[in-house]
């Protein structure tokens, strides 16, 4: 008898809710991406705000939607995959919208990476930006200095960053909370300063002319043409980043629903009690740092190849704080929430360009409002279910 709570078969209503949810989400996102008029952008934002207010006031609605997704996972997966794969073709050739999507997806990977730590294990880490940078630099240097193919630099860069992640995790053996937070802040600053000061990293000028990857002779710098439909070159990286997000989600799910995820959750809840259950907290903390660095490095490699130029300014303390904010605003230990957080905080500042000077001010105010009004995050953690699948 290992059944989880709701194991009913999916009803037609469930499927309808799933379809409506996914299509609606895609539509709102598209509208937001393509909108140029400040009134429309404000309208979409107000709409989203109203939506969350509704969920806050009527938790039953949220429960119903979640239940529907749980009962109709196949529908959700197939429809979701179809939507995200076809998405670039719905952007009307708008390369700016595609660019925003690529950046948002990369930040989603970074936020998912940090979520292993911050969400699952409640270990503060203000150095995800540094791992992101280490990955980007490792990958770019390999490509530029040794002509290594992008696909090969990916795992190597990830390995390099993972080593640094373990190193950073080392102090976590003894330091905790605010003290550990400062260690990671310091690490991030040191990495940024060193990238800026060394000669072989290109100094403040960074690295120029990082080649775009290619696959089967198709360079990622060229537009995609399928059935006469032409989408801008950014779509290549959209799919690459998408694959990375899918990978990150898969890893997050598997780890979350395993002994490892439980151990992280345990040391989040009560480190001392966790130790008494036989959990080697030092190992699990360092592991969390390593996993974070590993995934962040992937995002870094893709970013370097996408923009073809990196400099230390891409990997500042502020970037780490932004990633941290994405996880907390999105909802700790909830992959979907974290992705929403990443999209929100990537797109919001871009879309607030219309408010020009007030942009940063608005972003700051919005973040504070989110934290105050929905402290558990947009999509809070949900209990595990056992034996359902």
């Amino acid at each position: 008898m290992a059944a989880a709570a709701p194991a009913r078969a999916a009803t037609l209503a469930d499927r309808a809710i799933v379809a409506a949810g996914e299509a609606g989400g895609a539509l709102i996102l598209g509208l937001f991406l393509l909108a140029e008029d400040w009134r429309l952008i404000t309208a979409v934002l107000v709409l989203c705000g109203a939506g969350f207010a509704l969920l806050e006031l009527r938790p039953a609605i949220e429960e119903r939607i979640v239940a529907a997704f749980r009962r109709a996972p196949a529908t959700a997966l197939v429809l979701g995959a179809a939507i995200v794969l076809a998405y670039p073709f719905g952007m009307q050739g708008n390369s700016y919208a595609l660019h925003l999507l690529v950046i948002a997806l990369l930040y989603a990977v970074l936020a998912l990476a940090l979520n292993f730590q911050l969400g699952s294990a409640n270990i503060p880490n203000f150095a995800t930006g540094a791992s992101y940078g280490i990955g980007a630099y490792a990958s770019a240097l390999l490509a530029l200095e040794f002509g290594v193919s992008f696909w090969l630099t990916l795992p190597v860069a990830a390995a390099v960053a993972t080593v640094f992640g373990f190193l950073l995790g080392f102090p976590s053996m003894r330091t905790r909370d605010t003290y550990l937070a400062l260690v990671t802040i310091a690490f991030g600053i040191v990495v940024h300063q060193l990238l800026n000061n060394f000669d072989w990293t290109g100094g403040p000028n960074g690295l120029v002319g990082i080649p775009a990857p290619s696959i089967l002779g198709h360079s990622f710098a060229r537009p995609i043409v399928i059935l006469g439909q032409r989408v801008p070159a950014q779509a290549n990286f959209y799919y690459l980043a998408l694959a990375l997000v899918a990978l990150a989600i898969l890893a997050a799910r598997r780890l979350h629903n395993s002994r490892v995820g439980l151990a992280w959750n345990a040391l989040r809840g009560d480190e001392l009690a966790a130790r008494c259950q036989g959990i080697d907290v030092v190992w699990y903390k360092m592991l969390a740092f390593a996993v974070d660095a590993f995934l962040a490095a992937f995002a870094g490699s893709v970013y370097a190849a996408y923009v073809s130029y990196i400099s230390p300014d891409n990997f500042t303390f502020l970037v780490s704080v932004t990633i941290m904010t994405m996880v907390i605003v999105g909802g700790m230990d909830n992959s979907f929430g974290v992705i929403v957080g990443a999209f929100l905080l990537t797109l919001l500042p871009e879309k607030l360009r219309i408010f020009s000077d007030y942009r940063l001010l608005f972003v700051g105010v919005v973040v504070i409002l989110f934290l105050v009004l929905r402290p558990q995050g947009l999509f809070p953690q949900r209990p595990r279910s056992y034996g359902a699948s």
Partner: protein
Amino acid sequence: MAAPSPLLETRGLTMRFGGLVAVRGIDLALGSGEVLAVIGPNGAGKSTLFNLVSGLYRPSAGTVHLAGEDITGLPAHRIAARGIARTFQTSRLFGDLTVIDNVIIGMHARTRTGVLDALFRPRRARAELAAAAERAEALLGLVSPDLLARRHTLAGTLPQADRRRLELARALASGPRLIMLDEPSSGMDDRDTDALVEDIAMTMAERPGLSYIIIEHDMRLVAALPGQVVVIDYGEKIAEGPFAEIRRLPRVQEAYLGHKATHA
């Protein structure tokens, strides 16, 4: 009735915090299947003793042996893996996780899945977790059918008595050789205490080989337990023996009942 090599043996166990000596030269011996009650006034060093045995503190002097093996100063998770489980005076459940999550975490030392398994062999990892979930449910059913019914609620929302039971279930989940219960009755009324005595008696009947060390204040509970009683005051062992004898010793009455006069 003591076994040739006792299950747990401490020799000269001592703990100093700066100038303060919390535990001084304590010798204990406990065989398989035995029960030991530890009593003494507040601040006598009982919990410190537990923390030394379970590896949360590293002793300033003295040794701890488990079934002949020296486990002095090992980190807590290693000691837990060797078969010593414990509960805490104020319950330390993982409140933001479900009841069943708590029990499965208790099995951490008995399960194997690592990161790579979780990532690349999901089937095996899932099977292990499913098996763990099944065992956890069985265990919950044993400790309390009521708890089993609430296995998907968050542990933080449980009432006091159920928390205590869940802690017991979590401790049992690791399949220990020795369970240390730190004041299981604290904060309970008489009815809950009676239920607790029943729970403990039942698990003892269910797992005959298991040893217990129980810190207790409630004399009714101590009286109901089989086995020896150790009295600690000012960090030192001042008496040892069956409860019926211990309670009559003047030094114990002075040390213990003197402090606890209001309660007694």
